[in-house]
């Protein structure tokens, strides 16, 4: 896997707002009971789009961690969009939770002995994605996280 070493991911200087897809390949709402199903659906769609096994694996990890964050810290439910552009896969998860205050969350490695809220999820996502942006929902509520999974 290209992201073998957990080297510190580059901080994204651009305070990018999420890019908007022309059309999405998958639009799913989820809660804790649909987490397994969501991972499976995401993998199936990525397969269908012709993504390589390695890229699908990274996507499943990123989608899984982002969805888990929405379920555990973002109000218990969320919405996942998946689309593609050239060879890259775009995964966006939004929720209606209290929001992530720190846009640089997950840019430093988690402490191995940190407990439950060790901040592992976003660190994993930032390492597996080539780009990851965290923004606030259009009405000022909730969180939108968008990740780009390169080929």
């Amino acid at each position, binding site marked *: 896997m290209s992201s073998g070493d957990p080297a510190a991911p580059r901080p994204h200087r651009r305070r990018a707002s999420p890019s908007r897809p022309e059309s999405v390949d998958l639009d799913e709402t989820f809660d804790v009971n649909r987490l*397994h199903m969501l991972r499976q659906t995401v993998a199936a769609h990525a397969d269908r789009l012709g993504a390589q096994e390695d890229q699908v694996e990274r996507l499943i990890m990123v989608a*899984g961690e982002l969805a888990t964050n929405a379920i555990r810290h973002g109000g218990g439910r969320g919405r996942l969009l998946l689309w593609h552009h050239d060879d890259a896969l775009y995964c966006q998860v939004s929720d209606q939770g209290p929001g992530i205050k720190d846009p640089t969350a997950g840019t430093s490695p*988690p402490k*191995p002995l940190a407990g*439950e809220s060790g901040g*592992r*999820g976003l660190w*994993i996502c930032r390492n597996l994605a080539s780009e990851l942006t965290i923004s606030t929902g259009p009405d000022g509520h909730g969180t939108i996280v968008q990740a780009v999974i390169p080929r």
Partner: protein
Amino acid sequence: MTVPNATDVGAGDHACLTFTDGEDRLDLIAAFVRGGLRAGHKVVCWTDAIEPDGLAGQLAERSVKPGAAIRRGQLRLSPVSDSLLGSGAVTAAAMVDVLSGELDAAAREGYPGLRISADMAWASRPVGGVEELLAFETKVADLFADGRLCLICQYDRDRFDAVTLAFAAKAHPKTVAAQVYYEHPLLRICRQYSPPGVRVAGQLDYRQRDVLEQALGESLRLDRNPRVNLARLDYIDGACAGVIVAAAMRLPRSRRMTVRCQRLVATVLDLVGAGSAPGLRVQVSHEQR
């Protein structure tokens, strides 16, 4: 009555191993064979659902090296049809004679004890004769009197009906079954007996974090160098990967934890700090889905 650990079964025991998961059966048999070889006993595996060659390979994968033991005659793997069942009609009396002959032979060869594991799958087939098997399980009791014989009879729960299984359980003074911490179509967490540790298969996320901690905790208490078998784990999230790394971090310097897993799981372990746990070894298994 339940003995959860196959290594607790010893000389003089007649035990019933019931299983639904093929991995559990092989794992318990491997622990049984290893214990017998270490004790210097003769070990015989009468196979049925698995061919002797296949079993030898499975033992080798589970930290038992069958080759040398087979060459020196201490270990024999043979089909149940060539041994226990003999060539004539299958009768309980004939089977007891075969077993008694094995016991005499082991004594002549100088072994202080004999361990036999027998796959009873044959009796579930129409021609098998489940009545003779059940009669055998009762009649065989006398052979255990002098404490030299140890016999484990394997019953696949999916092959036998409930009445037969209940009878079999009653005819055996001991029952052996794998300890399962969590069982679900998408996830199974159980104890691994050979090599000793924990086995997790399926998909693992934060919802079963507590069960994972319990299973690892027990392994850390029981096993000096726990082996965590994740070869059939297709997905792990950061929370559970963190539990594994944290468990390894708490090991004293003289001990180590070995994790066998697929590439994706290795990547996640790496990202949550596997590299900073000196006692943790991660081996990427090539056995992909």
